[in-house]
């Protein structure tokens, strides 16, 4: 039996008067890839930001590894094993690739940095080639790899990826998803937010569809790939 990593119950998030997340509940179990798909503005990124403490829910509960993390500040969650790769990568553009990765291990003891770098470089050989280069000069795909590598440096129990395919050429999207699959096979539990529903559902164990702040459809990746509504709305018929 796999154990529950994340359990979200009835969270509600507001941006001023706008009710962005409405009574959202979902779960992630150990070893899963859970996808959160939906259109632009459906509330997927807001959900992730709420999980990582950058935004606050007014209600409900968020349990991570059995503990309520609703009121834990964002910078304390990393050490507990929750890593968030934000939308738009958000790498530190003026720092080198290796410095970015070191920042990823900010909460880890110094002795873990070297093995961490080695592990990241096996998944992302490109980053090793460019490790002395300033991150702002990397291509979009490389920046995405760096953002993911940086999150892996904290040895997370749950890796949350926000739109890893955004703005990338199809060949790079393939590569990034290949890596996501590899990370999963290496034992990382993943919560994946994607607009590219096709790609996301093809690797997801389970998926949730979000529409205007609500979760409307749930099922296994396969089920949703063949669900008529999902096909019409997100998979181009």
């Amino acid at each position, binding site marked *: 039996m796999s154990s529950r990593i994340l359990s979200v119950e009835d969270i509600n998030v507001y941006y001023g008067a706008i009710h962005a997340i409405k009574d959202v509940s979902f779960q992630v179990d150990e070893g899963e890839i859970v996808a959160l798909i939906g259109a632009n503005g459906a509330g997927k990124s807001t959900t992730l930001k709420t999980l990582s*403490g950058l935004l606050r829910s007014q209600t409900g509960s968020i349990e991570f590894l059995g503990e309520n993390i609703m009121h834990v500040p964002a910078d304390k969650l*990393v050490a507990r094993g929750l890593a968030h790769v934000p939308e738009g990568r958000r790498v*530190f553009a003026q720092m080198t690739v290796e*410095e970015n990765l070191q920042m990823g291990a900010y909460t880890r003891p110094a002795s873990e940095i070297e093995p961490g770098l080695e592990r990241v470089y096996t998944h992302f050989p490109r980053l090793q080639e460019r490790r002395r280069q300033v991150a702002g*000069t990397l291509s979009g795909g490389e920046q995405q790899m760096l953002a993911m590598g940086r*999150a892996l440096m904290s040895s997370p129990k749950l890796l949350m990826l926000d739109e890893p395919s955004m703005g990338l050429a199809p060949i790079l999207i393939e590569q990034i998803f290949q890596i996501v699959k590899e990370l999963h096979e290496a034992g990382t539990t993943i919560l994946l937010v994607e607009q590219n529903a096709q790609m996301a559902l093809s690797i997801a164990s389970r998926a949730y569809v979000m529409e205007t702040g609500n979760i409307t459809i749930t099922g296994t990746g396969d089920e949703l790939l063949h669900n008529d509504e999902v096909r019409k709305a997100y998979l181009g018929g």
Partner: protein
Amino acid sequence: MTVFLQYLVNGLSMGSVYAIIALGYTMVYGIAKMLNFAHGDVIMIGAYISFCVTSYLGLPAVVSVLAAVVVCTVLGILIERLAYKPLRQAGPLAVLITAIGVSYFLQNAAQLIWGATPKNFTSIVSFQVPAFLKAYNVSAVSLVTVVACLVIMAALMWFTGKTKMGKAMRACSEDKAAAQLMGINVNRTISMTFAIGSALAAIAGVLLCSYSPVLQPTTGSMPGIKAFTAAVFGGIGSIPGAFVGGILLGIIEAMAQAYISTSLANSIVFAVLIVVLLVKPAGLFGKYVPEKV
């Protein structure tokens, strides 16, 4: 030629004071993204503390500098905590106005405590300078100032480039939310920056008053504004920029005083700033980082 070199020495030493102040400005701006206009007044407080410790308590100069550093560091952290932190989510104008308010508050507090009558500050350094240097107007203070400035810049470069805390500061300066996602405590990092900037201000205050011994509540404001100019000149946010900007500003000022007009020197300094900003809007060392998407 000797006269020119004398002016150059004057410019270099005054420029080093500006550079030390500018380094504080730039550190705070780089991380907190705010212009701390009270920075110049922290300098003045530092000078008063040093003055009190030597004149009233009769303790050695080194102790007075340490006391000034400690008091200013605490003051800097307090100012940030009480005046700026509550405005973390507010617009930049609110913060700017608050900073101006803090500046007046410090000046008036100093006037209340120490009175408006200028104090006569005795230089904290007094050793014999070799005769050949003396010919070029090199004083003990100018030697100490230039060396202090170089040491401080090197230390800051090392700190931000090599240490974990320093790198975390750079990360915060680029992207606070992303830094938080790394586990970096942004509030503590900002506090730390204010502490460093204010400690530098204390040192600058003592050196400044060792040069021009008149200490009054407004002592810090003009050097503060000039150092701010120096920081912008060099590219605000950049440590080598603040250093080069400070030194250049000191030299330009000294040369303007010597060869053009003493009373116009300030105007010339600011005119040069305007020209530099017209040509290089980001300042001499201001970074334009191309970002690929």
